[in-house]
C-alpha cells in the first residue's frame, strides 16, 4: 500500500499567539512548532497500515523552516518526504499543491488530519478529493483496509456512521484512529538520511487575500457569587452580561 500523509507545521498548542506588521503576520518568535496533532494521528495510522511492502510518504507545503517538523515525521517512521517549497497561503493553495503531487504519484490512500490547528478550516481533504476525482471523508475515527476496500467509522450528529469505500480515497483523521507514536533514538538517527525531496509549487490562481488578524477579546475577570444568593446570579446574567 502506497500512502501519502499530509502534515501541517503548526504552533504548539500552548503557544502564546501574537501578530506583527500591523496585525498581518503571525509572530513566530519564540514559538515551538509541531506536527498538527490530527495529522499526527493520520501519520500513526498510516505507519500501522503500511505493511511490509508498502510505503508512507509525508508531504508538507511549507518553507524551509518546516524541515525539523518533517524530520520528526520521518523519525516516527515515514519512509520519505516531499516539501513543496511555498508558504501555505490558504486551503485552496495547499490542496492544489497536494493534488498536483498525488496526480503523478498514484497513492492508494491520502491521509491528513481532520483540520490543522492553526486555521482550523478543515477544507483541504475535501478539496483534494474533488481535484483528484476520488472520494474524501472526514472526520475518520477508525480506518481499516481489507483488499481494495477501506472501512471507516466517523462521528455524526447523535451517533456513528460506518462506511465502506473502494480505494483510492482521501481521509481527514482524528483520534482514536491510532495512538501517537513517540519516535525512538534509532528512528531519529535514521531520519537524518531518509530522502526529503524539495519541489517547487505549481502556479495557483490567488483566490483569497489577507487583510488582518484580530485576537479574541481578553477574558473578563471571574466573579464569585455565593450559592446562597442565586437571585444575584440572575441579576448579573440579566443586567451585566445581558444574556437572559
Amino acid at each position, binding site marked *: 500500500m502506497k500512502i501519502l500523509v499530509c502534515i501541517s507545521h503548526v504552533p504548539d498548542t*500552548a503557544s502564546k499567539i501574537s501578530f506583527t506588521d500591523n496585525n498581518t503576520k503571525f509572530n513566530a518568535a519564540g514559538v515551538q512548532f509541531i506536527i498538527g496533532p490530527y495529522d499526527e494521528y493520520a501519520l500513526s495510522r498510516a505507519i500501522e497500515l503500511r505493511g511490509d511492502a508498502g510505503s508512507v510518504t509525508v508531504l508538507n507545503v511549507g518553507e524551509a523552516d518546516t*524541515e*525539523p517538523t518533517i*524530520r*520528526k515525521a520521518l*523519525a516516527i517512521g515515514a519512509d520519505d518526504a516531499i516539501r513543496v517549497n511555498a508558504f501555505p497561503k490558504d486551503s485552496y493553495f495547499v490542496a492544489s499543491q497536494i493534488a498536483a503531487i498525488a496526480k503523478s504519484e498514484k497513492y492508494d490512500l491520502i491521509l491528513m488530519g481532520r483540520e490543522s490547528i492553526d486555521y482550523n478550516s478543515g477544507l483541504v481533504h475535501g478539496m483534494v478529493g474533488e481535484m483528484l476525482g476520488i472520494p474524501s471523508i472526514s472526520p475518520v475515527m477508525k480506518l481499516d483496509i481489507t483488499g481494495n476496500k477501506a472501512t471507516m467509522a466517523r462521528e455524526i450528529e447523535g451517533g456513528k456512521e460506518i462506511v465502506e469505500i473502494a480505494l483510492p480515497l482521501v481521509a481527514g483523521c482524528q483520534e482514536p484512529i491510532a495512538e501517537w507514536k*513517540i*519516535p*525512538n*533514538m*534509532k528512528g*531519529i*538517527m535514521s531520519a*537524518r538520511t531518509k530522502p526529503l525531496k524539495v519541489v517547487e509549487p505549481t502556479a495557483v490562481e490567488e483566490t483569497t487575500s489577507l487583510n488582518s488578524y484580530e485576537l479574541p477579546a481578553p477574558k473578563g475577570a471571574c466573579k464569585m457569587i455565593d450559592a446562597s444568593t442565586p437571585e444575584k446570579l440572575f441579576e448579573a446574567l440579566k443586567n451585566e452580561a445581558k444574556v437572559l
Partner: protein
Amino acid sequence: MPTDQFESPDYYLIDDLLTEEQKLIRKTMRDFVKKEISPIIEDCSQKAHFPEEIVKKFGEIGAFGPTIPTAYGGGGLDYISYGLMMQEIERGDSGMRSTASVQGSLVMFPINEYGSEEQKKKYLPKLASGEMLGCFGLTEPDHGSNPAAMVTNIKDKGDHYLLNGAKMWITNSPKADIAVVWAKNEEGRIKGLIVEKGMKGFTAPETKHKWSLRASITGELVFDNVKVPKENLLPKADGLSGPLKCLDSARYGIAWGALGAAMDCYDTARRYSLERIQFGKPIASFQLTQKKLAEMLTEITKAQLLVWRLGVLKNEHKATSVHISMAKRNNVAIALQIAREARQILGAMGITGEYPIMRHMANLESVVTYEGTHDIHLLITGADITGIQAFK
C-alpha cells in the same frame, strides 16, 4: 496527581546552541517521561517499588548506551544528546535516571571500552534493547570514597578465576542479569569481570528501607568462591583507571540529570506560587518568594551553560575528569538547594506526593553522595588547582 505540565526554562536562549536533532531528542524523551514515568513514579516511590517494565521501554526508546556505536545496538549519538536525555529522565525521577546511567555508562561503557569483540557482541545488543539488565560493583562495605583499597579479589585457577568478596550499594543489583565487578588480582591490580546471575556462589540481596531513590532497586553483590570463566575478564581494563573512566561517563550524565530535577522543582514552584493565594494575593507577589524563584532560575541557567559547554568539550574529546567533577558537584548541589527552597514555596503541599518536589529532594540526597561525594569532588578540584591531594 495533577497532570505533568513540565516545561523547561530557557532564560538565556540556550536552545539556540542546540541542533534541531538535539531538540527533537529532548522532546522525545520528555514525551516518553510524561507517558511512561510521570503517571507511575509517585506510587512506585511511595511503595519502594522498582517498575521493572521500564527496562524494556528504555531499551525500545534508546535510552541505554546512546553513545555506544550503533554496530553494537547503541545510539551512536553525541554527548549533548546523551546529556539532554539524562536531563529529561531525571526530571521524571533520579531513580529512573540511575537505572539508565548504570546500564549505559557503567555496564555498556566498560564492555565497549575494555571488552573483547566476543564480549561486545554477546552483551551489548541485549543491554541496549533492555533484554538484559546490568549493574556495576565498585563500592564495598568498608571502601566507598576510597575504592583503591578494595578487598574483593580474584585468583587465577588456570581455566577460571576464583572470585571472593562483597560489594554494597549497587544500583539494579537484585534484578541484574550481569554485574561488571571490580576486583584485585594476586598482584593487587584492579581488574574488571563480567559476573552472570546464576553463577554458583553469587548472590545479590536487596538493600531495603531506603528513604531515597525508592523507585530504583539497590542491593549487595556477594561472591563466595565464584568460578568466573576466563573469557569473562575485561581484557583491556587494568588498574583503578578502569572503573574511574566509567564513572566519568556516568557523572557526566548526572550533571545533566540533576539539572532536570532542579528544573522540575523550579517549574512546579513557579506554577504553584502563581496559583496559591494568601493574604489576598498569589504568594508569587511576595518579595521573599520572588527571591527564591529568581535565585533558582539564576542557578539553573548557570548550570545549563556549564553542562552545555562540558558537552561540547566531550564531543571534542577535550573534557577531563576534573571538568566533569566540577559539573557533577555544582549541578547536584544547586539541584538539592533548589529542591529545598521549592519545597518551602509549596508549604505543607510540598511534603506530599501530590507534587514531585519532596521525592526529588530525597532522591538527590543519594545523587549528592554516589559517584563521588560532594566533598570528594571539591577535593578533586582542590588537588587540580594546587597540585596537592588533600584526601590521602
